[in-house]
């Protein structure tokens, strides 16, 4: 009973902290039907979703269809968002990834060249704001940086660049089995680091 009361107390404090952090959560505002909240959603996550989409889908028409679907899906799922379970950016990027991966089945993918914009200072600020707003992202960033350089590259190619395991195997001239094993181990490791840090955060909240 004491343990249950302690767990509920920890959870209460985490929810309270999340609520104060996410008082202006866009998803909460969308769920409430607040005017202008959907526009804010596009404003905040449009660049991120578009950039992620470009890693999965080559044809402009496929990309545009998929990005539109992502935002409508996020809008329709806003009432399911639980701030105590995940950050808003996690929720948004998970929905985006699922939609893009679903689209991959229907069309063939092709790698595209990145556009290099010399004047990227504004965009850097946007990216920094994403990192600074979310402690989860900071945790994951640190966890990734704790991996070997080679493992970071594998993860980058798989999770970010959107290469399949067989494509990575050919690209890096590594046996397919090795690619699968290393990516699996890295994700398990990241998950363990992330969950350990989350638990420590909750414990710190409890002791505060």
């Amino acid at each position, binding site marked *: 009973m004491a343990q249950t009361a302690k767990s509920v107390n920890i959870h209460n404090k985490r929810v309270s902290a999340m609520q104060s952090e996410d008082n202006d959560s866009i998803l909460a505002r969308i769920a*409430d039907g607040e005017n202008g909240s959907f526009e804010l959603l596009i404003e905040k996550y449009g*660049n991120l*979703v578009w950039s992620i989409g470009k*890693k999965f889908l080559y044809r402009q028409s496929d990309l545009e269809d998929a990005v539109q679907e992502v935002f409508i899906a996020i*809008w329709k799922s806003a009432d399911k968002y639980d701030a105590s379970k995940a950050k808003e950016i996690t929720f948004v990027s998970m929905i985006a990834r699922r939609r893009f991966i679903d689209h991959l089945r229907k069309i063939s993918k092709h790698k595209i060249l990145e556009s290099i914009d010399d004047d990227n200072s504004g965009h850097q600020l946007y990216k920094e704001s994403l990192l600074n707003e979310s402690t989860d*992202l900071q945790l*994951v960033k640190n966890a990734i940086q704790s991996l070997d350089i080679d493992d970071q590259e594998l993860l980058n190619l798989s*999770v970010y660049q959107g290469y399949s395991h067989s494509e990575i195997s050919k690209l890096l001239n590594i046996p397919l089995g090795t690619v*699968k094993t290393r990516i*699996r181990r890295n994700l398990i490791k990241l998950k363990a680091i992330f969950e350990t840090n989350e638990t420590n955060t909750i414990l710190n909240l409890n002791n505060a």
Partner: protein
Amino acid sequence: MPREDKKQERLLDLLVLESTQKLSLEEQRELNTLLDLFPEYTQDHFHEMTALAQVSFYAQDNFNNELLPKQMRKRILHAYKSELGQSTLMDYINHYMRVFFYKPQYAWTLTILMTIGLSFAMIEFRTYDANFRYLPLKRAFLENTANDMIQFPWHSRSNSLESISGDIIWTDEGQKGFIKIAGLPMNDPRQNQYQVWILDPLNHKQPVDGGVFDVTQVDGTMIIPINPKLPISKAVGFAITLEQPGGVVVSNQPLLLTAPKERPKITI
């Protein structure tokens, strides 16, 4: 390496694959079977981590400065307004329901009631093999996430089963489903077992084996996973028969239950 460890390793490989690319029908079926063997895992095991890792890489990628095109912004807003324009009375009701339950005190009351209800449900299932302990959650997950879910209530084909209640849900994309049923008589697994069949006339001349199950309790509702033995392209109906232990490939037994009510064109 022990067989169980190999299976777990294969499960983790499939979960990694699922979080980074689309699985084939075969892979999805294999994943569903392994998830039933290892109920502590769920299909979205690595989803959060891959999503966060992707955003993290993006935030540090100095060469990726893509901006959402203005035209795209307009297009998304236009789509949103079209969706809004299709609002019905139910949408207004749902909106106010959401607002009501979003108040913390109501949300907590509902959470506590659901936890109590789920605890009772899980206690009821303690007579099952441990693998079946998480089935209510898995069914709820499917109901909330499957885009192509179909659902039919069960209809009795026998006078002795008139008190049957329940339904079946299924997703062709996920290649899985769940039976919810109450009122089915207990069986002796040494003598016979219930078998569920999936009707997919476009792809299979005969109904496809969806697995066997036992009824081990008189009262209460059971939730049973469906695991097709062959890929299903478009399920149109389901049936339950009573077969020899382990089930059969082709049934000669009378239909006990069907879903939907209308007799499908293919008969068992």
